[in-house]
């Protein structure tokens, strides 16, 4: 069973339906105990970083997430959910994140259109079971105004280019983050989600 954490940050329907289309066994929940019992966990979400952390805190979800990760279960953050994996963010003032991967989240800065919105291609930077069937140059759908800056570049699995390098997929052990929207990225996005579902099924500590 995969738990999708519902913490009041945007509509989770698309993520849920994409996983359902892959035949995944799912539960959408805001109950920390249900999350603890899941074989794998997805943290989706759109919105502001500070609000998101506050909601997770109030739900008692932070310790549940830590428990799941400590138990070696596959964990996937999507979009805002990926940013929350990091140490801290600049969005609307300084906020601390989950610190599952060391690094900072900052706003795009420069003389170009923000948010980074649309289809952009991936450069794969490291091998991972999450990337099975995904190729260099595959296009995925992005909508974001903030970028993550990992301390350790080894966590980068895939990047894209938008006026500089933009981390697209990160991973450390069994904790993964996807900055773009796999649930809106047609075949390529569904491949990534299928790989994650596969890891959960096999209990792989990737």
């Amino acid at each position: 069973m995969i738990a999708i954490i519902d913490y009041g940050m945007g509509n989770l329907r698309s993520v849920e339906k994409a996983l359902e289309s892959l035949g995944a066994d799912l539960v959408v929940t805001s109950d920390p105990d249900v999350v603890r019992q899941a074989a794998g966990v997805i943290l989706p979400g759109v919105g502001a970083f500070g609000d998101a952390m506050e909601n997770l805190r109030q739900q008692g979800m932070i310790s549940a997430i830590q428990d799941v990760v400590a138990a070696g279960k596959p964990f996937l953050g999507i979009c805002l959910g990926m940013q929350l994996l990091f140490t801290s963010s600049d969005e609307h003032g300084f906020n601390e994140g989950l610190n599952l991967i060391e690094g900072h989240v900052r706003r795009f800065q420069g003389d170009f259109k923000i948010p980074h919105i649309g289809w952009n291609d991936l450069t794969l930077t490291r091998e991972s079971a999450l990337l099975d069937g995904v190729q260099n140059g595959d296009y995925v759908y992005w909508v974001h105004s903030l970028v993550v800056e990992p301390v350790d570049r080894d966590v980068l699995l895939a990047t894209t280019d938008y006026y500089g390098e933009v981390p697209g997929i990160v991973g450390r052990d069994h904790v993964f983050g996807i900055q773009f929207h796999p649930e809106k990225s047609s075949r390529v996005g569904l491949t990534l989600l299928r790989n994650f579902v596969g890891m959960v099924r096999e209990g792989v500590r990737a």
Partner: protein
Amino acid sequence: MLTKRIIPCFDIKNGRVVKNVSFLTNERDAGDPVELAKVYEEQGADELVLLDITATNEGRATMLDIVRRTADQVFIPFTVGGGIKEVEDIRELLLAGADKVSMNTAAVKNPQLITDGAKRYGSQCIVVAIDGKWNVEMQDWEVMINAGKVSTGLSALKWARECEDRGAGEILLTSFDQDGQKNGFDLDFTRRVSESVRIPVIASGGAGEKSHFYDVFTTGKADAGLAASIFHFKETTVTEVKKYLKERGVSIR
């Protein structure tokens, strides 16, 4: 590299696609917006725009059901427009699974709707549709509302900038001079708007052949090109348009 987007658009009335779509031969599927959306995803459409042209409350409920079914079965982003009057309408559509909402007349009449929508749900899901028509006296493109029936005296360029300032995430720009003519997008209008805002501009109105998309992405500086009948009537397909653009060096998925 970020690609230019090809966006098929279709009108929906009482839950059915309004124009007959020739390539869906099965009678039952021909008018089903969800079936059509799936075909377009298959062809490589980058996004979809679903325009609700129903006026009744029953129609609104049917539309929400279509949005739900589309979100369940189609895994590319889609925008829903038509009939949005207040923030609550935005909320309903987003909850049903729309990725973005598009507002036109309501945004002109009540610009606060853009501000409130963007503040509450984020700029990324607020699209303002601007219908513009060249006005000789103004020597400018004038914003038209109520499906082009009412002129506003507003400059489309100024209005586009105001929309951006209020938090709109994208502009869906339709040229009323070109719409339905099939002899190309209004390149001058598109370029002028695209150069005066820092949010993406989706060009609409006038696509009649593949080369028109090339022109609007290069000369017109559009970020995306939207069309309806050129795709519905199988004059060309999304796949063919994208192949044509790719061969000419346009960044395309």
